[in-house]
């Protein structure tokens, strides 16, 4: 349940980018709070599923099959969302492509792909939607990133570099667009999973290390997302806020 002041009635959101599950969970949280939600990603099945969540909450949904790494497609998609919704109040950049590999074995093309999907897509989303938000003189941009934007983990160099890039994009745009009524924030997610166990390599070692001794559940990010895009956060911008079970704060 969302507190009254955080309700998003009448707001139009765009959740952009391919990721394992963020479209679905971000979309559901926004819709539950009263927003209509458009989804843009390459994976048609995934955004249809996310749209289903939105309809279930009685909100309007749009799905636009889009490759976020292609600036022209992104601009076209944003034009369509504006045509359909009349405006865009909220942009959630939810691009996430994972790769964990020793740097010496990481190929040129893997590196570029990681930067393209994780960082360049956020740039495309911010630029195309930012243009619209500046016209509106109001907007909320949330970049869904990771604790690895600020911290290193072995074999995650490409991922860390890309996420660090999105973090700095966030901080720069906060300053650049602050006078246009646009807030730009990032949510840093910790070790997340939809299931208690994933079978990923070295899972036990990792889980023992997290202060809460469990993965975060993607739905646990929704409440922060809703708060940050609500009308109560005009003064809160340029920040990276964590949903990480205290992973970032312990020594």
């Amino acid at each position, binding site marked *: 349940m969302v507190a009254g002041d955080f309700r998003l009635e009448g707001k139009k959101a765009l959740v952009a980018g391919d990721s394992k599950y963020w479209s679905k969970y971000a979309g559901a949280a926004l819709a539950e709070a009263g927003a209509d939600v458009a989804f843009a990603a390459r994976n048609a099945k995934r955004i249809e599923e996310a749209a289903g969540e939105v309809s279930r909450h009685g909100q309007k949904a749009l799905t636009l099959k889009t490759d976020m790494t292609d600036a022209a497609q992104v601009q076209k998609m944003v034009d369509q969302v504006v045509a359909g919704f009349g405006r865009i109040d909220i942009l959630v950049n939810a691009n996430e492509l994972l790769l964990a590999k020793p740097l010496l074995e990481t190929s040129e093309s893997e590196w570029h792909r990681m930067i393209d999907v994780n960082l360049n897509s956020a740039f495309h989303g911010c630029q195309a939607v930012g243009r619209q938000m500046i016209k509106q003189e109001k907007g909320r941009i949330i970049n869904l990133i990771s604790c690895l934007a600020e*911290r290193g983990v072995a074999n995650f160099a490409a991922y860390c570099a890309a996420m660090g890039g999105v973090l700095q994009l966030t901080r720069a745009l906060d300053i650049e667009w602050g006078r246009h009524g646009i807030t730009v924030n990032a949510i840093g997610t910790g070790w997340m999973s939809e299931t208690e166990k994933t079978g990923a390599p070295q899972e036990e070692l990792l889980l023992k290390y997290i202060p809460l001794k469990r993965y975060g559940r993607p739905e646990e990010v929704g409440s922060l997302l809703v708060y940050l895009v609500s009308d109560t956060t005009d003064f809160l911008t340029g920040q990276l806020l964590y949903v990480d079970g205290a992973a970032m704060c312990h*020594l």
Partner: protein
Amino acid sequence: MATGNGTLAGKVAIITGGGTGLGKMMALLMAKEGADIVVAARRIGAIEQTADEVREIGPRALAIPTDVTDPAQVNNLVERTLVEMGGLDILVNNAGIVRGQERRPLWEVTDEEWRIGIDTNLSGAFYCCRAAIKHFVDQGHGKIINIASGNGMRGNRGDFMYGTAKAGVINFTRVLATTFAQDNIQINCIAPGFVNVRELQPEPSTRGSFLTSDFIPVGRIGVPEDIGHLALFLASDASDYITGALFANDGGGLAGGVSPTGYAPVIAMEED
């Protein structure tokens, strides 16, 4: 250790807690570069010993018994330094105690423990800075090096007053640096990682002994020189444009810290 180059010749440095551990190493390294050293702590034997070793290296040395939690003793330390050494250029706030590190519930921590933890690790640095900085302003230069800890940057389970006080030291550094930036006083902070200081204790000690270095990215516990050389750098002209900075010197641990040591999975790129 190579021989010194005289980069600190003619400078006077106060090093609190300089009788043992990291402070002692800083004293010796700065002395080797020509600095006159004032060693200040409570145990007279230990500070006299450091002073002797400084004199063996060459520069002048003074051991001034000081409890940094007592502002009067701290003021006396600075006054005596100015009179007997003829100046003061560098202040290292290194005195510190890890008190109450034994994990116990917060409700069992006494007022006295809390007070001593904060007084020694945070207020001590304030008293020393307050006593020295007017002199730095008047003479138009000065260097202050505060020794904090990784515990002041992240939460360490059960470490209440030490971690809290060290966090205070980190931001005290920033406030000082912004306040005195135009006075040509550089104020910086070092956050040492795990450093073995056993060899630099007057009596047998387990201070800074660790069973394993597995958890440190570079694969070893720090040695006092790791921190001593950084202090030397921050005390010298080489760092004249650096102020308000926090230097973690910890074998790489703080750059990580969201996954356990040895966590290095391999996961293929999967796109659909």
